[in-house]
Every structure is written in C-alpha cells, then in structure tokens.
C-alpha cells in the first residue's frame, strides 16, 4: 500500500466547508480518551449529519498510541479518509507522524503547556495551542482527575472549533453522569474550561465545521458486533460458546448482556431463569465443539472468533460439514498472518473460511458490509445453517465489528419464525415409515434430521467418518460418493438463498468493480470521483456465488476486484467458481491494516487501468 496522496478523494485545500471534513485525535491508550471520542461522534450524529468514527487502537492495554478519526460528510462519504483537516495531537510519541497527515491548509491542535519542537512545524498548517494540562492542573486536584478531565477539556475546545452545540454536549454529560454528581461536576467544568478557552482565543468555529441538518431520523449509530449479538438474540440462539479474541470478543459479551436483559424470566419455582447458556470455553476447538454438540442436540448455537481461532476450528468445521450439523460462526477478521495485528483490519480469511478443513469441504460464507447487514445476515445465517444443515460463516471484520457505523435503523418483523429446515419433531418422526438420516433428499439435497431424545425409531449415529444414507460407516465407493455428491449439490443449491449481491450497473460501462464487505463505502466514493463514463459496481454478499455474480462478470470486459488482503482471496474464489480468466478479474488490494480509503481505491484503479 502506497501512502495515500492527500489530495485524492478530498478537495486539495480546506476552504469554508460545512459538514464536509475529517479530524483525527491522537492519544495514548488507557487515558480515557474514548469517552471524548464518543461525545463528539454522538453529537454530530444527532445533528443529522452523516458521520463515521474509526478507532485505531494498539494491541495493548495502556500507554501506547491510539487514534480516533472522525469523518463528517453531508454527501454521505463516510468511508475512512487518510487526510485530516484538523489533527488533535495529544500524544508526543506520534506527533512527528501525526503532523504529516494534516491536509495542506489544515489545523493542528496541541497542548501548549509545553513548548513544541519547532522542527515539527509546517508552513501550510495552522497551529492551535491550548494549555490543556496547565488548565486542568489548576482546576483539578488529583493526577487521575487531571488525566481524565484533559480529555473532556479537549472536547470542549473541539466543540467550539467545530461549531458543535455546547448545551447539547453538556446535556449529554448530564445524562451520562446523572448518578455520579462529583464526576458530572468535573466533566461539566472541564468542558467549559476547554470551550471557553477556545472561544476566547480562536476564531470559532473554524472554516470547516458542522451545521445541523435535522434529526437522525430512522438512523442509528451501532457497531457490527453489537448488531450480530442482537441478531443472535432475535434469531433465537440459546447456546453461545466462545473463546476471547480481539476483535470478536464483544460479539459474545454483547450477546450475554442482551440475554441478561431480554432472556431472564421467572421460572415455575419463582427463581429467575436464564433462557440461554453461554460457555466461555477453554479454547476455540472446545468453543466450536460445544456449538456442534448443541446444534446437533437441536439448539440454535453459535460461536464468534477471529483468524487464529478460525484456524483452530478447521477440524471441527469439517466434522460439522460432513455430519451436516448446522453451525453459525462469526469471524471478525483482523490482519494476519498468524497473530498478525490483532487490532487492525483485513479481509484475509476468505479462502481459509471457504475451504475450512482438509478433504473436500466447502462452506457458506456471508459478507456483511456494515452493522445493519451484520444484523440481517446473522439472522439469515441461522436460517441458512438450519436449512442446509451446514456451517455458515459470517465474515465480518474489525472495521465493521468494532467501529460505530451510522446505518438505517434495524427492523424486525414479528411474523418471523426460524426456518429450522428439515428438523423433524417427535410427531413427524413417529409418522415416518423409516428414518434415514442421509436419505430421501429434497431437491436441494437436504435430508431430514432428528435430534437426540425423541423417539426410538429415529435412532442413528452420525459420524465424521465415511457413511452411507443411514449414517452407517462405509468404505464402499458408491455409498460414500452418494453422500458427498449430495453435499456438493446442497452447497450449490444454497447460492439461491443467500442475500442477493448489491449491483449498480452504469449504462455502457465496460468495466466493473467487484468488492465485498467493509470496502463498500470507499469503493462507492471512489467510483463517484472517477472521471469518465464510470464503472459498474457489484458487491458480493455471500458464497457460493449466486447467478448474478457470474452474469456480472460475463457482462463486463473486465472487473477490478477490490479487497483488503494481499493475496486477492475474493478474486481467487471468483476464479475458481466462475471460471473467469485471470485478466478479467484484476486484483486491487489494500492490506496495511487500516480501513480502506477511497483514495487508495482511486489510486490503484486510476494508475493501472491498463493491466
């Protein structure tokens, strides 16, 4: 990944731009800056202005650099950008790097309690010094208070600089700390401290700032992992098993919190009962083992993990595939290989997920592009897993999963009932002439399923070893093949049931762009900025690929395939499945670990249209 040119994707100089700008806050982790970040995001969001926040945090708990990027875009371009109109440079360790990311004509806010190293100044940047540490030291007694309140004071400065409604911000603080009066006082005081200092010393607001557009009607700020957890509650999952791993941890932690909220009922005995069971397993093998066992016994069950966990789950994924046990696995992808960068994003588990496990194995994948799709696709994942009696992997990523995204409100149809597929109840089983676990397939290759504990006639024993229609062990080629051929047919049949790909054809476009997941916004922004007749767009939402994907590729002279990994994994899968030649699918890759920007997409497409 080349460093992004500061001009691409944004206007070159910072004029008086209302509701179109980006700021970045550089901090040290563990010092309480997160609340400030949220305060800003929330306020802007509530003014009805499209906004996004990207949290770039280290794989460490305290003391290392952390950044928060806020992009405000009335035109709806809320993909990550890499050049900033205002840098809030609160971390000395990264100052030299941070200053380079300010757009020409932009601003840098720093703490002038200490002098700035003059070698770090830039001619084309306006430096705004505020003696934040000194102000806080004067106002607050303890070191801890000073560290925490400096963040709020900084927020106060930004409220003034960006034209945010200070009363609303103040009201938010009041709401947040209503039960802790001392903390509330401190917060309010710190906010004023920063705010008033800024108003006194600077021309507020800056040329770029916000102006209210309305209320965020029908929109919410939510992260993907929360959305997944909500979906698991709504889809009726009762068993969750997991092993902590960044950036997937909050999926199951949120599921637990939501279940505690919605699934605690008083039992017949008067005690509170919990209509769910979450097991923090000893490792990822056990986590998936538990899910397989629970699903086999009839529950909707799921696990969440990230790359290293996915690697550890390979054997059990193969088991679930071959025994035809539903599994929902949420893979919140991070940068690999190996432990890689646990707090950075990539979409690099695609091949590993599609073909997870040795032998001829293939799985259904879903690729959500934002938290709303995380919600919808997770519900869908449970239905697909049940219907096709097979693992379904929701391929989320750190950007979607852990950052707050502004999306249309999640909706729910109370008429929804789980599609449990061919899972037979006791009565159905008793009515059967015979029960063959892997016999009598429906046209899509699905056979009927019985869980333990029902009726003697349904007795059988599933196994990961070679088996025939009755689930009996076999080494007979024909009996063995009958089952694995059906598995392939079943897998292909699933394509028609996946969420349809998102397609936007430009009239006359000879060239297309194919992408997936969290690349969506950046690619769309890039396409708008691209000169000329424009490119058609297709966002893949799942694997196996529906017919529409094949058609799109066939229709275009060639397609760029934009994805966030080094090895062109989506492109590889497209090659295998569609048979398209390599020169029809041109990889455009971004894999530095930070969410992809329109500038990166543009640069790659614009500079190498020939190949």
């Amino acid at each position, binding site marked *: 990944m080349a460093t992004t040119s500061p001009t691409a994707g944004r206007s070159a100089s910072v004029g008086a731009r209302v509701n179109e700008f980006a700021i970045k806050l550089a901090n040290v982790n563990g010092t309480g800056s997160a609340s400030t970040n949220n305060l800003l995001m929330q306020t802007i969001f509530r003014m009805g202005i499209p906004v996004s926040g990207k949290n770039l945090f280290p794989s460490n708990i305290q003391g290392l650099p952390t950044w928060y990027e806020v992009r405000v875009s009335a035109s709806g371009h809320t993909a990550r950008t890499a050049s900033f109109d205002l840098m809030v440079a609160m971390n000395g360790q990264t100052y030299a790097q941070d200053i380079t990311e300010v757009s020409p004509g932009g601003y840098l806010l720093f703490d002038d309690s200490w002098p700035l190293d003059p070698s770090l100044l830039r001619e084309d940047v306006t430096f705004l010094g505020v003696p934040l540490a000194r102000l806080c030291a004067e106002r607050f007694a303890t070191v801890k208070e000073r560290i925490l309140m400096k963040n709020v004071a900084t927020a106060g400065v930004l409220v003034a600089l960006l034209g945010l409604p200070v009363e609303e911000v103040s009201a938010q603080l009041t709401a947040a700390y209503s039960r802790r009066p001392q903390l509330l006082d401190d917060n309010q005081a710190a906010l004023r401290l920063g705010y008033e200092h800024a108003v006194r010393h600077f021309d507020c607001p800056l040329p770029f700032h916000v102006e209210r557009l309305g209320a965020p009607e029908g929109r919410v700020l939510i992260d993907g992992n929360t959305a997944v957890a909500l979906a698991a509650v709504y889809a009726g999952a009762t068993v969750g098993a997991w092993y902590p791993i960044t950036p997937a941890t909050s999926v199951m932690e949120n599921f637990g919190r939501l279940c505690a909220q919605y699934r605690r009922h008083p039992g017949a005995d008067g005690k509170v009962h919990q209509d769910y069971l979450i097991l923090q397993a000893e490792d990822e093998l056990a986590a998936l083992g538990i899910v397989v066992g629970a699903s086999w016994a009839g529950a909707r069950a799921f696990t969440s993990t990230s790359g290293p966990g996915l690697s550890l789950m390979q054997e059990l994924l193969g088991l679930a595939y071959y025994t035809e046990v539903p599994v929902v696995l949420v893979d919140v992808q991070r940068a690999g290989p190996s432990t890689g960068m646990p707090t950075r994003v990539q979409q690099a588990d695609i091949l590993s997920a599609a073909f997870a496990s040795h032998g001829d194995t293939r799985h259904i994948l879903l690729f959500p592009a934002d938290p709303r799709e995380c919600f919808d696709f997770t519900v869908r994942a449970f239905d697909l897993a049940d219907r096709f009696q097979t693992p379904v992997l929701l391929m989320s990523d750190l950007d979607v999963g852990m950052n707050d995204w502004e999306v249309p409100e999640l909706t729910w149809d109370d008429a929804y009932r789980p599609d449990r597929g061919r899972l037979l109840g006791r009565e159905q089983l008793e009515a059967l002439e015979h029960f063959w676990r892997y016999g009598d397939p429906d046209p899509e290759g699905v056979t009927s399923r019985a869980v333990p504990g029902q009726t003697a006639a349904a007795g059988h024993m599933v196994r990961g*070893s070679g088996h025939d229609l009755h689930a009996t062990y076999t080494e007979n080629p024909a009996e063995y093949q009958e089952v694995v051929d059906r598995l392939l047919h079943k897998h292909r049949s699933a394509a028609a049931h996946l969420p349809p790909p998102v397609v936007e054809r430009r009239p006359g476009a000879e060239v297309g762009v194919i992408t997936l997941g969290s690349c969506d916004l950046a690619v769309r922004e890039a396409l708008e900025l691209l000169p000329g007749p424009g490119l058609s767009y297709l966002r893949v939402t799942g694997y196996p690929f529906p017919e529409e994907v094949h058609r799109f590729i066939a229709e275009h002279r060639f397609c760029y395939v934009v994805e966030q990994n080094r090895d062109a994994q989506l492109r590889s899968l497209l090659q295998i499945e569609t048979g398209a030649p390599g020169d029809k699918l041109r990889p455009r890759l971004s894999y530095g670990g930070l969410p992809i920007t329109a500038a990166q997409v543009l640069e790659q497409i614009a500079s190498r249209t020939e190949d």
Partner: protein
Amino acid sequence: MPSITKPQIPLLPLARNQLGLTLRDYAGTMSTLCAGCGHDSVTAAITEALWGLSFPPEQVAKLSGIGCSSKTPQYFDSAAVGFNSVHGRMAAVASGAAAANRGLVMVGVSGDGDSLSIGLGNLAHAIRRNVRMLYVIANNGVYGLTKGQFSASADVGSRSRRGEPNLLPPVDPMLLGLSLGGTFLARGFSGDKAQLVPILKAGLGHRGFALVDVISPCVQFNDHEGSTKSFRYVREHELQDIEADVIPVRDQIQGEQRPGSVTEVELHDGSHVRFREVPEGYDPRDRAAVGSYLVESARRGEIATGLLYLDEQTVDMHELNLTPDEALWDLPFERLCPGADQLASFQAKLR
C-alpha cells in the same frame, strides 16, 4: 469360512425393567472390535446399566471421539441418537449437547488416547464445568486403532508388542480429575462386570460430570507379558477398594454383598450409593485423603478401583447457569425473541 466370530453382548432375554423392556431393547449393532477386546465388555456393562436404570432408550445421547473405544456407542442402544465425533473433542461436543437439552441421559465413551493425550485439555474443562454426563474412558494404555503406540496412561516400564519400554509417567485420570475439582471419580475393570455395572449406574445418577476410568485391555496390542494393562496384570494387581451399588428409588437392585463397612450417600436424583470401603475409614468425600490414597496405591503398583471420589455439593453446569428446567433447544421462540418493539427501544439509545 474364515470370518471371525464376534463377541455378542450377552442378553438376558426374559428379564424386563420398569419400562417392560429387555436388555435387547438397549442393544446396538454387532461389534467390529477384535474378539476378546475389553471394550466389548464395557459396552455390555453400559447396556446393562442403562437397562437397569430403566431409562427410555431414546432418551440417551451417545457420544464418542475416535478410537476403537470410541466406536462402541454404535454397539449399544440403537434407539438413541449418537455422535461419533472427532479425536479428543467429545467432551466439548457433549458439553454442547448437554447445554442444549438437559433432559438427555448423556453417555460418552472415549479412550485413553482420546481423553488423556489429544483431548486432555477439553476433558479437563468439561470436568470443571461439571457437565452432567457419564464419561467413560475405556483405558487400555495404548492407541488401539492406530496399532499399538503407547498412550499417556501406559505405565512406566510397560512394554509394547515390539518390546520397547514406555518411558513416560502415566496420567492417572482419577488423580487428574481430582486436581481439577471433579465431582465423581470411579474406576472399574472391564473384566469385572459385577463391580462395573453399579459404578456406571452411580455415574448415570450423578448430577454432574461422572468420570469413570475402566481398565479395558487391548487383546491385540496390549495384552502380552510386559504390559501393565493386560488381563493377567490387572487381575493380579487390582485393588478393589470401594464399591457402589445404585439403588433407584423405583426398585431396589441388589448388588453382590461383600464384607466391609458401608457408607451410604444420597445422590441428587434420590438414589443411594453405598460404599464398601476396604481401607478402614476411607471417605470418598475427603479430597485430600483420596489424593494421598491414590498416590500411595499407585506407588504400591496397585490399581485402586471403586467409587473413589464423590462430591454431591457442587452444582452442575445448568444449575450454575440458572437455566430453566425445560430443554433450551425446545423453548418456544416467543420466549426467546424480544420482538420489534424492544428492538425499537433498544435503538432509541443508539441515537
């Protein structure tokens, strides 16, 4: 014809249990293990225990990993649904099944390779979770199915068929279980059904994880001189300490009476376990003493058998997690899904 006659599970065709079922109703398909394999006797004992406790055959869930031992769930209770999973992961798969449906009678059969090498971590944590199930290790000191490598329970000095000595100290599942807070630890011998069946019954009645180590000789790879898990060796060195007879409240089952003092313990399901303790004052509820006892008997080259440790105080996974009495998998969807209105109120906070 040259085909090998297979051991059949001995059937008592006339005896009927409380459900009016005979042993045959708890039988599985014919075993494909080697003639004389100890595992077939374990199968027979499990069959008898299930029949004896009058569980509806279809209420049982059978689970296993991979190995000769792990094939055996196929050979009992064909009316049940079973899962022959992958090597070493049965404890995890069983934990999930138990989570989904607490009404199942969970029977897991594993081997020493399956449980003590590749599956050791997962077994350890299933013990900690106190998943309610009977977990049988058919322990032969070797990897039978892969043709006779030493397993982690092979004793030091034990020799393989090729004459190589085992060098590493054995893992004793009882000591291991004890160190991990196991709540039911018992050991039997496949050759002694009179002792084994009551142990299995007690395990099936235990409200928690019942770990039963059954010394089950491999006639193919570990039943020759030099092996410490052979029939002859076990017969000579077995130290029959404590015995447990399960007496379901529905019907008193008389076990063989043997001399010795008796401690009676009530299980959570209302049945009673009686210990006949060989060593004076042996208390299966005294963790520290049980540990010393196991270490000491191993040091004497003896295999302590019987119900070795019992803790009926610790609650099982479901009680711990306050789940309802119903099976989770079967809860009505209406009770699980908060509905559109709740989703709207939840999102009100996200604005």
